[in-house]
Structures are given as structure tokens and as C-alpha cells.
């Protein structure tokens, strides 16, 4: 075993020594190669610099050469241009001279022609103007006359038309004014009526109302409205119908037809059984119907006892005074 170990160690040592040597060799070769590479690089750069210098020299030379060539070309071109200038100047001078000559010739011929045309046209125009003048003068005269007539007729027509319009407008205004005034009057009347009615209705106390009713009952009694116990015994239904008709149509004019045919609606046989009272009653009834027909108080209604009339008059006067004071 120790022998193997010693061999192994020697082998290992040998191997390691050889490795070390190999490494050293490698390092050395590496450094040598690096040095060589750097050297080569330097040579390369130097070479490049030299080449660049040579190239710049060549370019400089070429540049100089080109400059020379350009200068020569320029000189030559200048010479050519100066030559052509001189030629052109000569040419220009000759051309302008020729042109001037031609111009003058043309001008002269034009002037002559113009003179001729002018003289001819003046003659023609003079002849034409004389004819036209005459014609125009007569036509203008006629036109003036026509215009004058038209204007005068137009002004007359316009005057008439304006007058008519004015009259119509005045009439319309008058009609409108009347209508408006009528409307205003009507509305004033309505207002007065409503206000008066309201005032009369409001201003009466309960006592005054009752007093008016008692006065009315007295009046009715004096008109013999209540004498009819033995006279026209109207049925309650007829009474009711009559009352309803009066209530629905309180205005006497509107309830009756022109012939006043309504007075017999409530008459009954008992009226005939008592001729005296029946007559008086029927008279009253018919007179009331007449009143209803005409809208005017009948003789019997007109004779509504003067006392009650006075009372009512006094009442209405009182009411009107109250209205006045309210106003």
C-alpha cells in the first residue's frame, strides 16, 4: 500500500509539475502573442497613417490641379463671353436701327390712314347727326307730350283714389268708433246695472226686506189678489206650475207670446159659478196677462195702491240715495 501511495504521489507530483510547466508555457506564449499583436497593431497604424498622408497628398495635388484647370477654363470662358458681348452689342445696334426705321415707316402710314378715316367719318357723322337730330327732336317732343298727359291723368287718378280711400277709411273709422262707443256704453250700463242691483240687495236689512214683503202683501190685497176663496179655485198643481213658470221666466215679456194667451190656464168652473167675482177676477187676470204681454203695468197694476207705490218709491229712492252715497 505505501508503495502505491508513493508512486501515486510521485505521479501526482510529476503531473502537477508538468501542469505547472505547461501553464508557464501557456502564459509565456500568451504574453509573447500579446506582444506580437501589439507590435502588429502599431505597424498597422503607422502603415495607415502613412497611407493617409499619401492619399491626402494625392488629393491635394488633384485639388491643385483642378484649381488650375478651373482657372484656365474660367479665363477661357471670360474671353469667350467678352467676345460674344461685343458681337451682341454690334447685333443689337443693327437690330434697333432696323426696328426704328420700320417703326417710323409704319407710324407714318398709320397716321396717314387715320387722317383719311377721320375725315371720312366726320363727314358721315355730320350727315347722320343732322337726320337723327331732327327725328330725335320730334320724338322727344311727342314723348314729352305723352309723358305730360300720362302724368296729369295719373295724378288725377291718384287724387281720386286717395280721396276714395280717405273717405272709406273715414267711414270705417266712424263705424268702428260708433261700435266701440256702443260697446263701451253697453258695458257701462251692464256695470251700472250689476253694481246698482248688488248695492240695493246688500243695503237692505232683514227688517227692511220684511217691511217690503208686508207692503207687497198689502198691495196684493188691495189689488184683490186674495179675494179668490170663492173664485178661481186653482188646483195646487196649477198654482205650482204657474209659480214655476213665473220663477223660471221672471221677465213678463219673455213668458208670453204676442197674443197673450196665457190668462186662462188657471181658470176653472167655479169662476163661472160666481159671475160678479169671476168677472172681476178674470179682468184682473187678463189685465195681468196683458201686463205680462206688454211688459207695461196694466191699469189695475198701474193702480197698485198709491200708498204701497209710494212706499216702494220711497224704498227705491232710499236705495238710489244709498247708491249715490256709495258712489
Amino acid at each position, binding site marked *: 500500500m505505501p508503495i502505491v501511495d508513493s508512486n501515486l504521489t510521485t505521479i501526482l507530483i510529476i503531473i502537477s509539475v508538468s501542469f505547472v510547466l505547461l501553464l508557464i508555457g501557456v502564459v509565456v506564449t500568451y504574453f509573447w502573442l500579446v506582444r506580437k499583436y501589439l507590435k502588429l497593431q502599431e505597424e498597422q497604424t503607422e502603415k495607415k497613417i502613412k497611407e493617409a498622408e499619401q492619399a491626402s497628398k494625392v488629393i491635394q495635388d488633384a485639388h491643385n490641379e483642378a484649381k488650375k484647370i478651373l482657372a484656365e477654363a474660367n479665363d477661357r470662358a471670360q474671353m469667350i463671353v467678352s467676345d460674344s458681348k461685343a458681337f451682341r452689342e454690334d447685333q443689337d445696334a443693327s437690330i434697333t436701327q432696323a426696328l426704328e426705321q420700320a417703326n417710323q415707316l409704319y407710324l407714318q402710314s398709320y397716321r396717314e390712314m387715320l387722317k383719311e378715316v377721320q375725315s371720312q367719318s366726320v363727314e358721315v357723322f355730320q350727315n347722320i347727326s343732322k337726320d337723327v337730330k331732327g327725328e330725335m327732336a320730334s320724338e322727344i317732343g311727342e314723348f314729352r307730350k305723352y309723358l305730360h298727359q300720362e302724368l296729369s291723368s295719373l295724378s288725377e287718378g291718384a287724387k281720386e283714389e286717395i280721396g276714395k280711400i280717405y273717405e272709406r277709411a273715414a267711414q270705417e273709422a266712424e263705424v268702428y268708433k260708433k261700435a266701440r262707443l256702443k260697446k263701451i256704453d253697453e258695458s257701462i250700463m251692464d256695470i251700472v246695472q250689476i253694481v246698482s242691483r248688488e248695492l240695493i240687495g246688500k243695503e*237692505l236689512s232683514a227688517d227692511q226686506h220684511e217691511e217690503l214683503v208686508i207692503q207687497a202683501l198689502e198691495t*196684493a*190685497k188691495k189689488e184683490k189678489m186674495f179675494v179668490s176663496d170663492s173664485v178661481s179655485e186653482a188646483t195646487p198643481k196649477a*198654482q*205650482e206650475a204657474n*209659480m214655476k213658470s213665473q220663477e223660471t221666466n*221672471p*221677465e213678463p215679456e219673455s213668458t208670453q207670446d204676442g197674443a197673450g194667451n196665457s190668462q186662462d190656464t188657471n181658470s176653472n168652473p167655479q169662476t163661472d159659478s160666481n159671475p160678479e167675482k169671476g168677472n172681476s177676477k178674470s179682468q184682473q187676470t187678463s189685465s195681468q196677462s196683458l201686463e205680462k204681454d206688454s211688459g207695461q203695468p196694466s191699469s189695475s197694476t198701474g193702480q197698485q195702491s198709491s200708498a204701497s207705490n209710494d212706499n216702494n218709491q220711497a*224704498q*227705491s229712492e232710499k236705495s238710489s240715495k244709498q247708491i249715490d252715497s256709495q258712489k
Partner: protein
Amino acid sequence: MYEEILGNIRTKDEAEKLLDEIDLLMESLYKDHEGTFEETLNKKVRNWVKLEIEKLLDSKKDKKEILSKLKEEIDGLNYLKMNMAFEPTSAGIDRFFGFVKKNIGPNNALDISYDPSLLGGVQISYKGEYGDFSLRKRFDENYSRIEEKIDEILNDKRRKQIE
């Protein structure tokens, strides 16, 4: 016999109320247990009606006959229809009724209705006769004169304005 009870009826409404009460009494005549005649008379009828009916029944006649006759009498009442501009007080109704009793006679009552548009006064209807004693009528009759007066005033004013 019936004058006293009829004399208490002032208006149609009162007459109708009384008729209702009589109907109640007449219905109670046919009932044995609930709501006998006496019970109805004591509990469902106004006191003065009760007293008046008791007076009538003193005559020992048939109850049904007396009540039927009373109904007939009430039905036979004449009504003075009065359409007024105001609703009268009870005292007012008394006044009107007093007038009717005094001037027209018994067996008459009032049938009152209310229409403020009359302004005042009354519209009367009695047995087919009609009389309009309202202020509205007087106002309408005289309104043409008022209108003329207003017209005059308006025309004067206009004339002055034009001048």
C-alpha cells in the same frame, strides 16, 4: 175641530212635517208590541202635536178616522207662494202668516222660497194669481230711465272732450 191644529201650520214645510208625523201615528195603529200608538205619540211626535192630537182623540171617535180627516184637512190647505230675496226669520214668518190669517182667512199657509236675484220685495202666487212685487221688477222697469240718464252724461262728457 181641526182649526187649532191647522192654525199652527205656518208654512208648507211645517205641513209636510206634520203629515209625516200623522203617517207615523197611523202606521203605529197596526202595531201591537213595538211602537204602539201611545208610544209613538209620546216619543216620535212633537209635544204640541201630541197635545193637539190628544185633544182631538178626546172626542172618542175612531183614531184612524180622525187622523185621516186631519190629513185631508192638511192636504186641503191653500198655500200662498212667496218667492223672496231673503230668508225670513221665524218672527218674519209669523208676521207674514199673521197677515195671511187676518186678510185671507184660515186654511191658508205659506210656501216660501228664496231667490236673491229679486233684490227685495216678493213674488206672490195664490190660487192661480201671480203678482211680482220685487225690487228687481221695479228696477228693470225704471232702468231705461237710468240708462237714458247715463247716456246723457256720457254724451256730455264726450262732447266736452271733443271740444
